[in-house]
């Protein structure tokens, strides 16, 4: 056993003193501002304007820039280099005159002196695997990043440019006026990294057994930054976590690769006849009308045949993509290729998969059907998928999304065997990444500032899609009865939300600054939306509002407020309290039942009434004769109340119901006062299940507004004609309550997983 010496970097003393008394003082408490949980978000939200309206829709002056690209790209497989020459056509739709353009050079994050390499703190490692030690202290960092050959105007004049880290400013000879276009050219190249060892979104995987590489290439060309009404020029550099903010535009791209490579990319392939063999072309044509199962265009046998022959020739694959915010491609001689046609609304979309043989037999079985299911479910809840295809490419260890194409993990063992976990991991990541076509590829939110806007919405939709996949492909999930979704269900987020507050960020945080991106930008917002849909708004109101948001911002650039406002505007449900609690704070849900008191009807006023009366200098004799007196039962009598104890009440009953004994019998005869407590900071609807002695149960959902005048506790009266034997808060665990030990009356011993397991192995 090794011994370690620890460095004590920071010592925090926290003192808890639960018995401390508040100082007694005759002065009232100090004043305070409006700290009500239901306070509207006027201070957090910006003032609506003509670009973005108070309803959450694009305003009458809403604009967005259009950027078109014409590119010639060459992949040098032998030397792992990528070369490009691009023409950029920038259309200034803003009302402003632009003196310069900012261009994103995301590859520069891989320069050996990139500031991003030093963005994290952390001291010496007391314990480190030898490979990691060597990589950290011995290896020279990979020296990637863009080499800019030149930037020229269309007429060939060099343009002045300044590179600041991952961004480049191009100074214009003349400003671009509002409504004008400007066209210019950039020539560049860079060294391609290994995305497996670098844990990167783009690069190649090297296969040592056959010496081949599979390329998944993205962020590979200088791309225009977004200029808009909320940021001006997006000036937040690429630090690695915050992804991309991109303009819509049209692309014409010629990809020159080794002649034996198979390529998939954003956009329509314009020259299949030139790049495919006759046989492949025949299958490609057949696939266009195969709606029931995928057609394999390049099969495993053919791939194995090619793997040992490294063609020296080149081929150029030509793509055209309309109205996309980015362009990415995959290329390798190792790729098996299949596709099928899917009907989406009135249109036909191709669901496509591309994978090395290392992905089989898993990939040929599930990838394309997972793509098809994603298009189907997402289209139902948002809008019909508008692009001609959706491609799922198998890349080791990563999931990453681009328009029409994405990279996904999920690899069987070398003997072709795979566990359920690998299978479900693969299907889930495909659904997630293909789903990103909707958010943020089409509903084009700013990922650089807000990771949750695409990840959270997409993870929410992923949950719905996984569940539908489970219903539609029962044999794929056999023997489970429902798809094992990792995220989306409220109970799954409680460990995160109950964690140490020092290490949790509000959802409304920049992705660079959150502690755990997974729960923070994916799981928590997805769960919050699921709770909105199931518990707070109901499916009908939620689905309509969510669809309204998707359709309003389809092919546009929404901000968080546009989402928040639309969800309220389209549903007439005030959700400011929900956004404030779930999105702007790190509060958690903890609601419980504190106690139950039974009340009886008495002939005389009880001590509580005397107290009230004496405060007014009155006695019981001063009261009018028509009051009913209720007082706590103190537990000795569980029987029904006796109406005869109250003369005015008996008189009222006799006069109202006379001899109608049925109506008399149906009158409530048990009166309970139930006190609910709320140790958690979040307000939520109070969902209560009441159980009665006769075995029946009632479910009451008190609106969230019940907390608006007292944030700590609330009392409710239950009048019933059955004896109450149990109260349970949030019986279906739908509110993400972090502590269920206070959810029941009488107190139910909640058993932990530990206790359940121990009971099971004993039994």
């Amino acid at each position, binding site marked *: 056993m090794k011994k*370690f010496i*620890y460095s*004590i*970097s*920071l*010592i*925090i*003393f*926290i*003192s*808890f*003193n*639960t*018995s401390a008394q508040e100082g007694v003082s005759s002065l009232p408490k100090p004043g305070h501002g409006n700290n009500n949980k239901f306070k509207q978000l006027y201070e957090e939200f910006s003032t609506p304007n003509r670009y973005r309206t108070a309803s959450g829709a694009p305003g009458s002056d809403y604009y967005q820039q259009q950027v078109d690209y014409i590119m010639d790209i060459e992949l040098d497989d032998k030397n792992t280099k990528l070369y490009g020459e691009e023409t950029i056509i920038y259309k200034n739709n803003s009302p402003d005159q632009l003196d310069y353009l900012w261009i994103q050079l995301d590859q520069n*994050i891989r320069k050996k002196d*990139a500031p991003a*390499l030093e963005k*994290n*703190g*952390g*001291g*010496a*490692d*007391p*314990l*480190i*695997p030898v490979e*990691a030690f060597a990589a950290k202290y011995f290896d020279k960092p990979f020296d990637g990043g863009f080499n800019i050959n030149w930037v020229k105007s269309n007429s060939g004049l060099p343009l002045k440019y300044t590179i600041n880290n991952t961004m480049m400013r191009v100074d214009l000879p003349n400003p671009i006026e509002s409504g004008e276009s400007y066209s210019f050219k950039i020539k560049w190249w860079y060294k391609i990294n290994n995305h497996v060892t*670098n*844990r*990167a*979104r783009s690069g190649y995987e090297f296969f040592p057994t056959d010496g081949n590489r599979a390329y998944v290439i993205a962020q590979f060309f200088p791309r225009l930054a977004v200029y808009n009404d909320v940021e001006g020029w997006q000036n937040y550099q690429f630090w690695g*976590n915050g992804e991309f903010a991109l303009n819509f535009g049209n692309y014409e791209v010629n990809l020159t690769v080794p002649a034996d490579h198979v390529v998939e990319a954003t956009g329509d392939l314009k020259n299949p006849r030139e790049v495919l063999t006759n046989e492949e072309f025949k299958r490609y044509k057949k696939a266009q009308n195969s709606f029931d199962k995928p057609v394999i265009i390049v099969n495993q046998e053919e791939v194995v045949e090619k793997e040992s022959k490294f063609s020296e020739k080149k081929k150029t694959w030509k793509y055209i993509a309309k109205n996309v915010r980015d362009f990415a491609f995959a290329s390798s001689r190792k790729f098996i290729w299949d596709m099928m046609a899917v009907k989406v609304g009135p249109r036909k979309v191709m669901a496509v998969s591309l994978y090395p043989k290392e992905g089989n037999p898993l990939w040929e079985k599930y990838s394309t059907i997972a793509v098809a299911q994603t298009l189907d479910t997402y289209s139902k809840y948002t809008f019909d998928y508008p692009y001609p295809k959706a491609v799922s490419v198998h890349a080791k260890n*990563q*999931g*990453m999304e681009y328009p029409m194409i994405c990279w996904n993990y999920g690899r069987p063992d070398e003997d072709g065997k795979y*566990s359920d*976990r*690998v299978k*479900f991991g693969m299907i889930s*990541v495909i659904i997630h*990444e293909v789903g990103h076509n909707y958010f943020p590829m089409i509903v084009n939110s700013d990922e650089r500032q807000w990771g949750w806007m695409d990840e959270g919405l997409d993870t929410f939709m992923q949950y719905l899609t996984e569940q539908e996949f489970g219903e539609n492909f029962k044999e794929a999930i056999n023997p489970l009865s429902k798809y*094992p979704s990792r995220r989306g269900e409220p109970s799954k987020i409680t*460990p995160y939300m*109950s*964690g*140490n507050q*020092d*290490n949790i960020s509000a959802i409304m945080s920049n992705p660079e600054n959150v*502690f*755990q*991106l*997974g729960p923070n930008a994916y799981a928590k917002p997805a769960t919050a939306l699921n709770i909105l849909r199931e518990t707070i708004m109901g499916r009908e109101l939620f689905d309509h509002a969510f669809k309204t948001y998707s359709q309003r911002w389809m092919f546009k650039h929404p901000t968080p407020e546009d989402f928040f406002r639309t969800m309220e505007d389209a549903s007439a449900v005030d959700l400011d309290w929900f956004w404030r609690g779930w999105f702007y704070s790190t509060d958690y849900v903890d609601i419980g039942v504190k106690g139950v008191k039974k009340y009886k009807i008495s002939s005389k006023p009880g001590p509580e009434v005397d107290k009230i009366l004496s405060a007014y200098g009155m006695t019981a004799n001063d009261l009018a004769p028509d009051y009913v007196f209720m007082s706590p039962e103190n537990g000795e009598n569980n029987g029904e109340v006796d109406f005869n104890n109250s003369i005015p009440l008996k008189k009222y009953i006799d006069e109202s119901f006379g001899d109608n004994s049925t109506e008399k019998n149906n009158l409530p005869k048990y009166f309970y006062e139930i006190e609910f407590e709320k140790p958690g900071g979040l307000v939520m609807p109070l969902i209560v299940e009441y159980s009665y002695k006769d075995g029946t149960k009632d479910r009451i959902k008190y609106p969230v507004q019940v907390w608006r005048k007292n944030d700590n506790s609330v009392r409710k009266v239950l009048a019933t004609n059955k004896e109450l034997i149990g109260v349970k808060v949030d019986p279906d665990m739908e509110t993400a309550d972090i502590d269920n030990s206070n959810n029941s009356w009488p107190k139910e011993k909640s058993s*932990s*997983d*530990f*206790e359940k*397991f*121990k009971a099971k*192995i004993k039994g």
Partner: protein
Amino acid sequence: MSIIVLFIMMLSQGENVELEFHDYYVSTTQVDYIKKKNILQITIRMFINDFEDVITKNNNLKLDPDSNSIEINKQLNQYIIEKFKILANQEPMILDFIGKEYKTDMLQVYYEVKLFEKIKSVSFENYILFDFFKNQQNIIHFKIDKFRKSFLLDVNNPKATLFLD
């Protein structure tokens, strides 16, 4: 009851420049003190595939379903007792392996610790998976009656101590 927490903590993350879907490594350990029995109930949760990297490093064992349950439990227990320490009143405690189960993509491992005297301080040392993932973070949730305290441990700060009095 007054509780003073001595909390050693410093945040650090690995140097991964780019981060993608599920590129985070977290284990969660729930430690519940059961006063009546004077024991600690411990539940360690980690991603199955993270732990599979441990178990497949030197042999070909497969989890969920287990290729060889007895051998896997043996190796799992060996790994955990080497990487996870609990000290009560500065004395190392013995971890009794109760068992393990799978929940979706999580592996849950159960341990029990018998205490022999009144607990005044408890220390945790958690090196689980630090030898595989430089980004690994291990969270410990400690619960005694209504009091809860969480610790985020990482490779630079694998140790935390809690004083109870």
